């Protein structure tokens, strides 16, 4: 296992009497990390504590191998953060804003300006960069938040709900960008979201937080393999007959509202199911192994936590 980028040891954060984080201990290696949890679970608080935006009430945390309490400023030079809420400096143009953010991270002016334009191109912003940030649409705000978070070329970037308020096309573009940061450029990405599809799409490690406690930390692959034996079968027609066939084989099956047949086959892989289909001349259009595995893991983790 490579050197962890995030380390926390029994970190606790209190808001009055409420425990927003309760003894969270974790060691996370570099990668695309999905931070999952229901609303109010403590995801944002966890990020804020790591970035020293909120002081810790207990425990210790380190980012990139450095203690966040003692070396907060030096750490933030190598860390990017795109907050969930709209945060901007009023009256600034988009390109000025990103340049300023780069300068705040220690880039000299000319480098900052050049990087700002590169990052605005990277996130797909055109001439809008010459408009005041206050006038941006939600989609543009999300893009500029991403641009300011990566403008100083951080080693790790925290993205808090980066696809909120985006239309499907915009969401797809942002996810593609975020994915490329880790896959192509080696930048560790921590994606905090309650949208499981987004996390499933780009992350290879999952942290599930609920009620201020860390419930799950594992790779997505491992998590999916825990939920073996479920598949969705896509057929042109004859869903009811297929359901009946599967049930006669002792499997639980149901026809979903989208026409897919969900089957709990119980096997470690799809070989028995494929054999059954071959024997009974069933020609599915597609078989989706472990669909919604993340959702099921998530729900299971939550139910175990209650």
């Amino acid at each position: 296992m490579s050197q962890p980028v995030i380390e926390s040891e029994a970190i606790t954060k209190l808001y009055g009497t409420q425990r927003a984080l309760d003894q969270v201990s974790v060691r996370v290696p570099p990668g695309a990390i999905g931070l999952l949890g229901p609303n109010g679970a403590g995801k944002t608080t966890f990020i804020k504590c790591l970035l020293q935006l909120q002081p810790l009430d207990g425990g210790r945390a380190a980012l990139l191998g450095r203690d966040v309490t003692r070396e907060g400023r030096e750490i933030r030079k190598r860390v990017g953060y795109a907050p969930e809420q709209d945060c901007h400096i009023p009256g600034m143009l988009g390109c000025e804003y990103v340049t300023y953010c780069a300068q705040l991270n220690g880039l000299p002016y000319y480098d900052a300006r050049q990087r700002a334009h590169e990052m605005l191109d990277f996130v797909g912003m055109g001439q809008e960069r010459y408009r005041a940030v206050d006038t941006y649409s939600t989609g543009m705000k999300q893009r500029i938040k991403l641009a300011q978070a990566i403008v100083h070329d951080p080693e790790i970037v925290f993205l808090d709900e980066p696809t909120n308020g985006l239309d499907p096309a915009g969401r797809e573009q942002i996810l593609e960008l975020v994915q490329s940061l880790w896959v192509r450029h080696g930048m560790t990405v921590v994606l905090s979201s309650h949208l499981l599809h987004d996390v499933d799409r780009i992350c290879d490690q999952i942290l599930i937080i609920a009620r201020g406690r860390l419930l799950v930390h594992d790779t997505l692959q491992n998590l999916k393999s825990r939920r073996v034996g479920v598949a969705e079968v896509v057929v042109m027609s004859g869903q009811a007959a297929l359901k009946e066939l599967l049930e006669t084989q002792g499997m639980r099956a149901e026809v979903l509202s989208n026409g897919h047949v969900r089957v709990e086959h119980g096997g470690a892989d799809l070989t028995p199911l494929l054999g059954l289909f071959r024997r009974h001349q069933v020609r599915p259009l597609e078989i989706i192994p472990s669909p919604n595995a993340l959702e099921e893991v998530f729900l299971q983790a939550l139910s175990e936590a209650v």
Partner: protein
Amino acid sequence: MTLIEQPYRHWLGEHQGIWARRRVIAQTTLEAWLAAPWIKRTVFGCWTACLGMVALLFILSQFVDSKSALAEWLGQENPSTLLLIGMLEGWLKQDPELVAGVPWALLFGFYSFALFWPTLLVLTMAIPRVISRDLATRAIVIYQAKAVSKWDYLMGKAGALLGLMALTWLGPLVVAWFASNLMAPTWTFFWHTRGALGSLLVFVGFSIVFLTILALGLSSVSAKEKAVTTTWLCVWLLGWGLEGLGSVDSHNEGAGWLRHLSFRYNLSQVQRRAFDPTEKLQRLREFKSPDGTRPLSEGLMPFTRIQDLEGYEIERHVRRRLRSPREAMPHDHGDEPGEAAAAQQRREREEQALQNQVRAEVSRLRASRWNGALTGLVMMAGVSALIVWVRFRKS
């Protein structure tokens, strides 16, 4: 098809130090303020006033040089003026510190007092934009997520405030001092007028540091800009009103401490202490022209009065208070010539004693006000710092 055409490139440069980042905060904030039309106009007005100062000081310096163009022109018009200029030139040689240094100090005392008002006006427009606006738009989160701590942020904002006040107040004064000496008849004016520069640096430097702390505190009061402006105006204008209640002529003498709730009043005490205009004017009275007039002290009287109105008021009040019981006593004029002379001597002694008493009482009152002013300023700065600390403690 994706919109993204720019590939991501890693940045391999060197990071700048923390002071550069603090300077960026100060510079960006200041530039944003200067984009506001009224702030820009006020700054322009202050620099126009600077030109006026330079012109006036240039004329004054021409008056102490009989070979100057102005002296020659005035001499052609009125030969007696040339005599006066020659006399001033002689005085300059005899006591340059007094002839050049003291008028410069009096004029700079007046200018530093005059530019205080546009500075307050500019602060009224800038204060809501210091921290309050960042709180309202949550820009503070952006700052905190960057490689700057909250103290760096505050130092940057303080730098912006200092920069703004340097543009409206300290800058025009220092430039006026430098330019006026550059145009003076001799280079020695730089040396003879160093006292004026020192006094203005002390007073204006102290004041802008105090006003910076006050502005940071007031701007942290609320995320609502209107609430911040209202609080600032209350602190400024209400304090000004309270000065009247605590004045020497007020019937309510126990309310004297109220005047120290006004930062304007407290800073005026610092100004008086730094420039000491009344004492300086007194020294200029030594110079009399052959016709018995005092050209230097009379010419500079209005500049002095306006700087130390309260000083005159205190002196008048004390004199009246001490004189009243004496005037009520019966006067013995004496019938015989010897007795009349003795009575005259006694009256002179009494008058001298009265003068000494007035001086002692005035300096006691002045000392008490100076102490009160310092206490007031320290308390205001303390409260302001406390507000900032509470606001940023947990964020």
